[in-house]
């Protein structure tokens, strides 16, 4: 006991050690191996050898440029849609929720508790070619008589938006909920209209939440492949589909790893930019 008393500085490190060690072993080290594998070449038949195969990268970029950009595009649109849906929703809960706040929040989190795949399969059902949604849209005239929603980019983006909505909504809610309402009252006392008060006070104060939500939504969405697989056609293939296929079916580990590395680098760039903006203290909550 006295050892720790005398070496107090040791305490945080002892507390950290097991968790950090685990993460280093199974998060950081694998990233190293990802890089190592990305420079390997070979097939199952002949085995894989490490030979600084940089052409894995050049091949990856030239062959799959379309899928990369499509992933960024879909993720971007989905993030925007999620923002547009989540902001009014979380505003409503944070400011008008009153006693029911936590319960309403439950509705946002609830879909999260149904397995991701089952949720997406349900969308397959809902958006089916002879389902009620399509019939309704055809009735209204938004979709042509021989049009469809399923197996289009719309379906894929809609799926991504739905599945990642909680990631946008929760950070937004947290930052909206923390806004001191007396600030808004003060603005109104100073003759600001509700709209002005919102634009000048609420919106800027909620920005940290918006940025966090955007990041937490966009990044995983860019790597998603399930929505494209279940709700789209080969023309909607995202980079995630390519990586998954190359790793688990074609077993072209070298190129698959190169693709993952490229994705990871793009993501890291975004995270670094975010960290600079916000500082490391705000990162983990």
């Amino acid at each position, binding site marked *: 006991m006295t050892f720790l008393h005398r070496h107090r500085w040791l305490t945080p490190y002892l507390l950290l050690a097991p968790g950090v060690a685990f993460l280093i072993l199974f998060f*950081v080290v694998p990233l190293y191996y990802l890089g190592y*594998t990305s420079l390997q070449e*070979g097939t*199952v038949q002949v085995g894989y050898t*490490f030979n600084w195969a940089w052409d894995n990268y050049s091949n990856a970029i030239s062959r799959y440029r379309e899928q990369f950009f499509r992933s960024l595009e879909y993720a971007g649109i989905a993030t925007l849609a999620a923002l547009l849906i989540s902001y009014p929703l979380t505003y409503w809960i944070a400011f008008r929720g009153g006693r029911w706040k936590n319960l309403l929040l439950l509705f946002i989190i609830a879909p999260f508790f149904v397995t991701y795949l089952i949720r997406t399969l349900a969308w397959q059902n809902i958006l089916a070619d002879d389902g009620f949604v399509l019939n309704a849209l055809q009735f209204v005239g938004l979709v042509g008589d021989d049009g469809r929603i399923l197996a289009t980019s719309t379906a894929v983006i809609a799926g991504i938006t739905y599945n990642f909505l909680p990631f946008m909504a929760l950070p937004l809610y947290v930052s909206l909920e923390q806004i001191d309402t007396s600030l808004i009252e003060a603005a109104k006392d100073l003759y600001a209209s509700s709209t002005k008060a919102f634009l000048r006070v609420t919106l800027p104060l909620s920005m940290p939440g918006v940025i966090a939500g955007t990041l937490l939504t966009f990044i995983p969405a860019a790597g998603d492949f399930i929505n494209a697989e279940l709700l789209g056609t*080969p023309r909607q293939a995202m980079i995630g*589909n390519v990586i998954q296929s190359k790793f688990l*079916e*074609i077993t072209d580990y070298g190129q698959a790893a190169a693709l993952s590395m490229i994705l990871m680098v793009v993501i890291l760039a975004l995270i670094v930019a975010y960290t600079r903006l916000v500082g490391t203290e705000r990162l983990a909550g």
Partner: protein
Amino acid sequence: MTDPRFNDPLTRGQLLRRAAVGGTALTLPSLLAACGSGGGIEGQANTQPATTSVKKELAGEMTVSNWPFYIDQNDDATRFPTLEQFTKETGVKVNYLEDINSNEEFFGEIQAPLSRGQSIDRDIIVPTAWMAARLLNLGYLQKLDKSAIPNMANLEDSLKSPAWDPNRDYSMPWQSYITGLGYDPKKVGGELTAVSDLLDPSLKGKITMLDSMEDTVGLFLLEMGVDPSGEIDPSAYDEAVAKVQKAVDDGQIRKFTGNDYTGPLAKGDVWAAIAWSGDILILQPDNPNLKFTIPDAGGMTSVDTMLIPTGGDVFTASTFMNFFYDPEVAAKVTAYVQYISPVKGTKEVIEKTNPELVDDPLVFPTPEALENLYEFKPEAIENPDNQEKWQAVIGV
């Protein structure tokens, strides 16, 4: 509370210390790598085929990996009568998994452990012949215990001696299949006779094609008049692939599927597909309109083959194979799945139990019909250039 010290720019001392830590980080993985394989991921098979001394006693249970809709079962796939019969006769419980959706996908799952000589917890797997050949060449298979398979004598003569396993030391066929067109005539608005019928603009977005190159490209080659079981001219291959690519670009093809075209076809999201013969008939309860046809130019065929992978129980697996080569049992399976049985004597049994099937050309093809069925040259399937071109089309 942030400690202001940590916001200062790095001092030289801090930089040096961080570099030292980073340096250690770099050596650690190389230490770990030294513990593992030397130059990279183990891709090579263990060079000695697994020699297990065959015990002559049955295991308590066994696990089989097969394609879906490939064994007799009740309507929602919870009971398998022939498997229950097997268990009754031998006391061996069968875990029957329908987890093969496409050969490549399945290979991707089993490759890593098999390449290290590890078991994949399967006693029998049933991939298609060309994949079976690949697995054999990689050394992932065990020899059958032929003393446990007296019914091997019932194997159809035409299947007795494939090029890749001339003595049937490692494999026994399960069923042969035909690749053709499965479709709903009501939705399509008529009959289909050629694979290029799928490219009709009225079917835009309503068709699927198989992601297995040998099935899809094979059909297109046949329509071009090229025989895919012989030497394939690269320019002919490219032309066939280009046709498929165009269909993708036009938005004609909804999806490239393994066995999973069955769902959308049953549901009505897909009106026509390149499909396997028996599947369509099994989908009848879900969609009674569905029909299967072999294109006039010819259809593709191959054999799905039972194999014993590394780690499987050879005696129990061989006993299982033997059971299904009894014409009575084979007839039960074929009556349900309606694929082509490799077992001699099945026809005679079916004449008594399901006489209407005897004339079904999809289940018991006449010799003339067999003329119109082709098997894609295995070397052409494994050709890396061909594979790469095909992968570019299906979007990976």
